[in-house]
């Protein structure tokens, strides 16, 4: 089932087209990796999908047009996201951060469901026992986990993850990758992940999309993409691993 359809998405800042006539589709349960040089429009794409930016073109989620909706409405439709730089409610403890997602991101639920949801997410992400720590005092990895946990507490069908491994150690990166695999398999969550680390993308994604200057220059399975001449020319370079 085509869970997401992007049609001719164009997002302009003044004269500059940050995203230029982009179209692609995704199947439910798929993991799509997006890579590209800085300024390629990847984060702008996320901001457009989630309603933070206005754009021309259309986006369909579960065959429903979500193009003109505001961010909170898009969350209610089932799309959640994380941010490149950890955005958190720094004055609140972890469980209150999650509660915002669990309470406001999920329509019509009871208090018990909410607690159960939060506990499930916390144990899935390994945050048990840390609920009462004020998020301002967390290390980077835990901050990112909290941001992810809050997003997941909204019970999304599609998760957009923006450069999750930035600033993490190799061990933390490995743990995070395993986590995404688990979420995708166990919950059937469709994921789009923006990343710079090719290793992470090739391991996680079923398909990859390379963006340059707001345009899609290639899309396909990692094996193909990494061998694509255009991609190598513009993005990957001809080093040992290309």
């Amino acid at each position, binding site marked *: 089932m085509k869970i997401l359809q992007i049609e001719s998405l164009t997002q302009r800042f003044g004269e500059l087209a940050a995203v230029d006539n982009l179209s692609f589709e995704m199947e439910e349960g798929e993991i799509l990796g997006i890579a590209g040089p800085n300024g390629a429009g990847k984060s702008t794409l996320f901001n457009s999908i989630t309603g933070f930016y206005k754009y021309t073109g259309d986006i369909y989620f579960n065959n429903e047009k979500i193009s003109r909706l505001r961010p909170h409405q898009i969350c209610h439709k089932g799309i959640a996201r994380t*941010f490149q730089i950890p*955005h958190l409610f*720094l004055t609140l403890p972890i469980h209150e951060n999650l509660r915002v*997602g669990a309470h*406001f991101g999920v329509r019509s639920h009871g208090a018990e469901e909410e607690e159960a949801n939060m506990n499930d997410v916390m144990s899935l992400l390994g945050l048990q026992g840390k609920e009462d720590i004020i998020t301002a005092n967390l290390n980077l990895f835990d901050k990112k986990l909290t941001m992810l946990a809050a997003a997941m507490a909204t019970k999304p069908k599609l998760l957009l993850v923006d450069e999750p491994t930035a600033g993490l150690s190799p061990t933390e990166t490995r743990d995070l990758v395993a986590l995404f695999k688990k979420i995708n398999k166990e919950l059937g969550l469709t994921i789009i992940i923006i990343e710079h680390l090719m290793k992470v993308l090739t391991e996680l994604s079923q398909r990859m999309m390379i963006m340059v200057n707001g345009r899609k220059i290639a899309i396909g399975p990692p094996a193909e993409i990494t061998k694509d001449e255009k991609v190598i020319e513009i993005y990957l370079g001809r080093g040992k691993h290309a």
Partner: protein
Amino acid sequence: MKALKLSNEQLIFYIVFGVFGILPIFLNGNLAIMNILTMIMLYAVVATNWDLMMGYAGIFTFGNVAFFVIGAYASGILAMSLGISPWLTIPIGGAITAGIGVLISLPCLRLKGAYVALITFALHMILEPFLKSDMGRAIGTGGAQGLLSIPPLSIGGYTFSSLQPVPWFYVAFGLSLVSLYVTHRIINSSWGLSFVAVRDSEPFAKSLGLDDFRVKLMVFGIAAFFTGMAGAFYGHFVGILSTRVLGLDLFLLLMVMQVVGGMGKFPGALLGAIIVTFANEGLRAAGVYRLVIFGAIVVAVVVLAPDGIMGAILGGGKGRRLDRFRRFARRAFGKETSEAGDSV
């Protein structure tokens, strides 16, 4: 005896209102002090709701004195020109103010920080010329003279009088108690969580399903409602109303109450109202230097103790200092024996 599970905030709240509730008994109807206490009750409402907007929701608002005045005029005009009982015009005044609060929030929804401050301050600045204008006089504001004979409250045959401060005090007390209690409940509810979320990180909050427009509208509406009611009561209490209330004095005083009390830390504004009002009276002896000292105190408090009184009472983290005191008190009254491992 089952111990009451009260949070630190609730404890302070009940102690203060408890004391205020019985204070009049010891004051022998001393007019001056009773009036001060009544004003403290009103200031507590305004400052608390202002703090709800600024400290909790992070909205830079300078329109709250305007809300106070709008409520006062609305209630006064309705009572004077339509003869409606003040018991009704006070809540109606609050409702009218709430409506205006929601209206003024509309241009602020997409704006941040200093811009919102500017728009809400514009409300304050426009109010005086409006009240004095022909249009204002047409709806009964009394122009530059203002309202000169606002009817007082009355129950049954008894009409409240400015010579009998105690009934006035208890009505203000009731208003303040209810208003602050409601604020307390709001803060501890999911609404309160939504305010803090939008304050701490609006994008994150939106991505988690919060409608930031609705949150802001609600905060404006709620704060304007209670502030307007406090203003309405004030009008009937004092009996006359003019645009002098819109002067800077009240504005600055209320801001100071929030800072001294501790912003975003209920019931800081209540404590701030008490402390600042008494300090203001106490400093009258300093004559022209009163406000100079006040200003210096404000800067000192902001720079040296930015969490205000509540920060000082609660100590770092979630109320450790007060917790230690409470454990000590419980043990002192024999309700609890110390356990191994306790350190106090």
